[in-house]
């Protein structure tokens, strides 16, 4: 404590001590400990009669916006990719109107100009487009990038939403303290079946691990799903 105040580390540690710990027993008799304990309980309460829910929501949105604008947190920019569209049957268009003119002898100069413009445009795109580091690396909206798990026979199937802009995904296995212990890359699709005997080195069949999915673009991470704990097959 300093000047009648606890430091963040001191209060966190003190409250985590067993109730019969001498240091905690000594603290319990002091008004400042009891004051912080009661105020903390009040702080943690989800509802607050003093501030209406709508005002809380508005304040939360305002604070997120301010902190993102100041660069303290990433903006919410990552959105799930649009659902795949079923391939459509391509029908040949009847040659009439502009199409007929373009493909006729009179339209050939126009086709040449258009081709030249495309070549110039591709050249500009190849040299001037933003690099990966310049690309906005946001975070997923809540629920936009979710990992789901389902047991199918002897496999545990992981599946997740496609993330716009992602070209591959990495399934990350997390150990204590959420440190990565193994990963497996998935270059196509948005699912992976885990089977005993075919698990990455570092994770054991029958163990409980946390898993998260990292969306990658050109090798860089652009979004991460919330982690889920599963029992490996």
């Amino acid at each position: 404590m300093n000047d009648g105040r606890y430091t963040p580390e001191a209060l966190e540690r003190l409250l985590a001590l067993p109730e019969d710990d001498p240091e905690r027993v000594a603290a319990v008799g002091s008004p400042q400990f009891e004051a912080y304990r009661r105020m903390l309980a009040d702080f943690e309460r989800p509802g607050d009669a003093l501030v209406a829910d709508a005002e809380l929501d508005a304040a939360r949105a305002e604070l997120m916006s301010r902190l993102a604008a100041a660069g303290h947190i990433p903006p919410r920019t990552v959105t799930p990719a649009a659902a795949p569209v079923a391939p459509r049957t391509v029908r040949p268009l009847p040659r009439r109107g502009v199409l007929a003119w373009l493909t006729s002898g009179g339209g050939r100069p126009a086709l040449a100009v258009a081709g030249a413009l495309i070549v110039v445009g591709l050249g500009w795109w190849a040299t001037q487009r933003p690099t990966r580091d310049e690309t906005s690396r946001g975070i997923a909206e809540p629920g936009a990038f979710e990992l789901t798990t389902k047991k199918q026979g002897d496999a545990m199937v992981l599946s997740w939403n496609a993330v716009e802009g992602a070209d591959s995904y990495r399934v990350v296995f997390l150990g204590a303290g959420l440190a990565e212990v193994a990963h497996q890359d998935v270059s196509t699709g948005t699912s992976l079946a885990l089977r005993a005997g075919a698990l990455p080195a570092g994770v054991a069949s029958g163990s409980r691990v946390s898993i998260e999915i990292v969306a990658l673009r050109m090798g860089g991470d652009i979004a991460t799903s919330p982690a889920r704990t599963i029992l490996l097959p």
Partner: protein
Amino acid sequence: MAEVPEQDPNSDELLALRYARDSASAAGRAALATLVERWSGRVYAWAYRIVREREQALDLSQDCLVRMIGALPRYEPRGKFAAWLFTIVHNRCRSALGRSRWARDPDIELDLLPADGVGPEHAYESAESEQRLMDAMDASLDERERLALWLRAEEGMSVQDITRLMKIESSSGARGLLQTARRKLSAELESRGRAQGDRA
């Protein structure tokens, strides 16, 4: 082999640890954003409770959250993340407010400040040592009176908030408790002052 203890991987403590360990990765940034989103409403509610004005509470909340983000790289889980965060928030709010608000609290102006302007709050500030006042509080006040006075004088809580925090159900709420504490502490300090004068 990886074996994760039965702990929610999206708990505050693990999210904070994840950001602390790798603030540059997408996972670290997402963990931070989740923490901010999860707690910003409660940080605002606490700041509002202290300053009672929306724009000021927003500015104060933003400052608290920036301090939290700045402190997170050094975060090590020792217990509950909420306790760690709350201490940052409350200490900051208390510093920002100073003691100026006490005089603006109508409950205090009307009922607690003595006519000569020398009450326990004033005595607290002007006491030669904190220990001397603590001794006087221990000698003259019971546990609830000490707590009420501490919440008022040291933490700057309103009488209404003290009533709620201490779950006081009487019609006068914490006001009666504070009045009693004030009277008893004043008498104790006066008595000690007289005794000291006699010795001198």
